[in-house]
């Protein structure tokens, strides 16, 4: 124990102590199989608890990481240098390594190279921790394959936890398979019980969700034991008690709400001590509320996963002598099977939440705002089993004029597809930063896939570079659907390219590259096949549907994405996940700002964002305070429409802004009528508009209201760019 650096010990010990411990470790180091080492290190018997190795040369960082990762429940082992990390790896089972890149002595990248070169540690996933963006390209290039990820300091706790959990989960799954096999072998040795166990571990049960599974298990148990009552309790989230999940027959001796506090009563005591028991007559707790039919005997068996208490199964009879010790033994064996099924089902539910967090962490948190482009993206997870999909997108400003935009689809679902997608995304980013053209970048990516990801990994990617200065787009595809372009007059075309073989198929072809003009105001739409593919339908039907949706979509990219999704996917559950990314080239100079947005609260920040962009592009000379004033007046007018105008549910409102002869004019138009302002608030918004502008006119008509606000601007500031 003295030599195991757990999180808590790491916090309490002084650094001096750490040095001594390291020295002690070295003394006993030569044989990893040293019995003393095995006795000290509980890793051998704690197979169910995989280790998380934290490597950082700053003790404060180790403590912070430990605190962050403690809730995950893995064993935390700290190492304060690359050397020490390598020593820990010699004798401990490690599920995942968090490795600081910048360390004195062996740095993170060198340490990782050694870990990867040893057969016994090659498979261990590594998450690099780095504060320097310039490390990223190196990491992406050196480790584009294998389970490698990185987080940038300071990290988002949720994202770091999600990433670590995924790797822990993989290692637990492996341990789980071993455990299930053992449990099964043991149970099957008891021939008398085979039929019972088969009924309770029927493969049909494995497809049930938790609620259905619990109900089915209770039903089958009740029938098998000829019981008058049966119930299944599961541990609650907070782990303070057990909650009745399913029951059948006569009332069980439980509180009325079905919640059994682990601190109270004889049943709770049995659960806490993980004991089975056959209770008779007066030994039974009393049911609440008292029921006319009272159970005279009750078998109580804990549901365990390893030593962890999952819940409890209760089987009761009105006859005192209905069950004997043999029945209790049988139920205990059956409980093992139930626990496996329940554990699996709970993990599955937990896994679903986990993968959703992971999916979010894999897509860019926010898209860049290049000066002349407006970007918007949507991601819809698959309606089936809600697993992580392999769809991804990304965008990255290369310089003032050029922006790299990419979208891809890794065949398959689940953690593996998601990990692969994050590797592809990182590598492609690195190639883009290095200045490769789309065709070259995809060629490099293909080589990487062939060399490292192995056979059977298929992915499609579309990579394009939008050049706002040259008003053009250059693209290459690897088996991915071509992007669509919607021009100002609503025409829709698809940008085709030659030689598009998915990544991982063949090493001979190089995707060709094509350039197309992109006019200001035109919108590119990149998408994954989930948008156009439907089971039992030709893809051309889906493409036609997209064509129509895009033709009639609103100009604004955010609204455009929503419209396209509504018209193509609607409310139906999709078999596949769907990603789409819209990119609009903004006009170069003046021209008024023209917006049409849904009359919803969410449109207000969007409209303000557009106004800011328009000011930056068209009147960069406008001073900051003036801009801030106009932003408030503009937002207030939009807020009034959203708050007070009423019309059809899908009502929209229009906003326009112009600068001419020293006057900024803002107009907000709606198609409803204003309710009289209620309370203080309405007055406050109008008051602000009047104070912030030189003129405010409100034109109320039966078919709509137009608010027109003007602010005089010093001539020196009213210069268009």
């Amino acid at each position, binding site marked *: 124990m003295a030599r195991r650096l757990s999180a808590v010990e790491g916090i309490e010990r002084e650094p001096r102590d750490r040095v001594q411990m390291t020295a002690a470790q070295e003394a006993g180091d030569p044989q990893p199989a040293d019995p003393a080492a095995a006795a000290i290190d509980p890793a051998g018997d704690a197979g169910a608890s995989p280790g998380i190795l934290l490597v950082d040369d700053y003790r404060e960082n180790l403590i912070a990481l430990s605190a962050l990762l403690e809730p995950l429940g893995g064993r935390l082992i700290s190492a304060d240098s690359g050397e020490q990390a390598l020593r820990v790896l010699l004798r401990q089972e490690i599920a995942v390594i968090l490795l600081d890149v910048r360390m004195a002595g062996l740095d993170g990248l060198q340490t990782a190279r050694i870990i990867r070169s040893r057969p016994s540690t090659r498979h261990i996933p590594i998450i690099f921790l780095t504060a320097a963006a310039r490390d990223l390209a190196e990491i992406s290039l050196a480790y584009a394959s294998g389970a490698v990820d990185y987080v940038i300091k300071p990290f988002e706790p949720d994202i770091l936890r999600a990433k670590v959990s995924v790797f822990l989960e993989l290692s637990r799954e492996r341990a789980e398979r071993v455990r299930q096999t053992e449990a099964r072998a043991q149970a099957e040795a008891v021939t008398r019980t085979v039929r019972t166990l088969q009924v309770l571990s029927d493969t049909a049960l494995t497809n049930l969700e938790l609620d259905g599974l619990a109900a089915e298990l209770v039903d089958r148990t009740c029938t098998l034991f000829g019981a008058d009552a049966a119930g299944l309790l599961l541990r609650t989230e907070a782990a303070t008690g057990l909650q009745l999940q399913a029951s059948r027959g006569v009332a069980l001796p439980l509180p009325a709400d079905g919640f059994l506090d682990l601190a109270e009563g004889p049943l709770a005591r049995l659960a806490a001590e993980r004991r089975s028991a056959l209770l008779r007559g007066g030994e039974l707790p009393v049911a609440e509320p008292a029921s006319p039919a009272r159970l005279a005997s009750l078998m109580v068996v804990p549901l365990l996963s390893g030593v962890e208490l999952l819940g409890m199964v209760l089987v009761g009879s009105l006859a005192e002598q209905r069950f004997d010790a043999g029945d209790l033994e049988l139920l205990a064996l059956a409980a093992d099977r139930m626990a496996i099924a329940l554990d699996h089902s709970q993990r599955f539910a937990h896994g679903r939440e986990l993968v959703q967090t992971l999916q979010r962490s894999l897509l860019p948190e926010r898209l860049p705002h290049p000066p002349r482009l407006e970007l918007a*993206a*949507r991601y819809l997870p698959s309606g089936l089993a809600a697993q992580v999909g392999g769809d991804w997108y990304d965008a990255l400003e290369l310089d003032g004029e050029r922006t790299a935009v990419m979208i891809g689809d890794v065949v398959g679902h689940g953690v593996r597809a998601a990990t692969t997608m994050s590797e592809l995304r990182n590598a492609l980013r690195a190639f883009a930063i290095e200045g490769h053209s789309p065709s070259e970048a995809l060629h490099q990516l293909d080589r990487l896939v062939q060399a490292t990801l192995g056979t059977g990994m298929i992915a499609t990617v579309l990579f394009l570079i939008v050049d706002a200065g040259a008003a053009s787009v250059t693209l290459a595809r690897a088996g991915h659907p071509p992007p669509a372009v919607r021009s100002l007059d609503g025409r829709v075309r698809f940008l085709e390219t030659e030689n598009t073989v998915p990544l991982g198929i063949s090493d001979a072809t190089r995707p060709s590259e094509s350039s197309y003009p992109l006019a200001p105001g035109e919108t590119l739409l990149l998408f994954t096949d989930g948008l156009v593919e439907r089971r039992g339908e030709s893809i051309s039907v889906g493409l036609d549907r997209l064509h129509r949706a895009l033709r009639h979509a609103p100009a604004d990219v955010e609204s455009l994405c*929503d419209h396209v999704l509504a018209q193509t996917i609607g409310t139906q559950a999709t078999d596949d996940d769907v990603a789409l990314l819209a990119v609009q080239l903004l006009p170069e100079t003046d021209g008024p700002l023209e917006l049409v947005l849904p009359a919803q*609260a969410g449109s*207000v920040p969007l409209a303000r964002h557009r106004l800011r962009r328009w000011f930056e592009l068209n009147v960069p000379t406008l001073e900051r305070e003036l801009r801030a004033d106009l932003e408030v007046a503009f937002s207030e007018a939009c*807020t009034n429409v959203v708050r007070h105008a009423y019309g059809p549910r899908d009502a929209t409102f229009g906003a326009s802004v112009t600068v001419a002869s020293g006057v900024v004019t803002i107009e907000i138009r709606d198609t409803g009528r204003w309710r009289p302002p209620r309370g203080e608030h309405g007055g*406050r918004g109008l008051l602000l508009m009047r104070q912030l502008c030189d003129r405010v006119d409100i034109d109320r008509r039966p078919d709509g209201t137009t608010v027109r606000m003007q602010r005089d601007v010093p001539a020196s500031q009213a210069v268009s760019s």
Partner: protein
Amino acid sequence: MSGSRDLARVSVAERDRVTVATICGEVDISNAAEIEEALVALPNLALGLVVDLSGVGYLDSTGVSLLHGLALRLRRRSQRLIIVSPIDSPPRRVLELTGLPIRTPVLEDVGSALAALEHP
């Protein structure tokens, strides 16, 4: 959906008998209700609440109404509200124009707000 923009974040810290809520981002009709929800849960024994707007880049009448409502609610419980908003910041101008500082103190920084609450 990844299209929604995260406009503002609220973090709440308990300091002795004072709660300090720091808002960062933008406050408008699209998120005022959420922000209000984060601000109203004040322990009964607290002297009062400091709402720090130093990190707010945009605030309009919706935000002002929120602060007014909050001040009234606290006054009924004999707790005090102090707003922190530096002079020359965009929210400060909106607060001044709507007359909020007449009834609720608006101070330069959290330090002076804490001092004012603890030594009224």
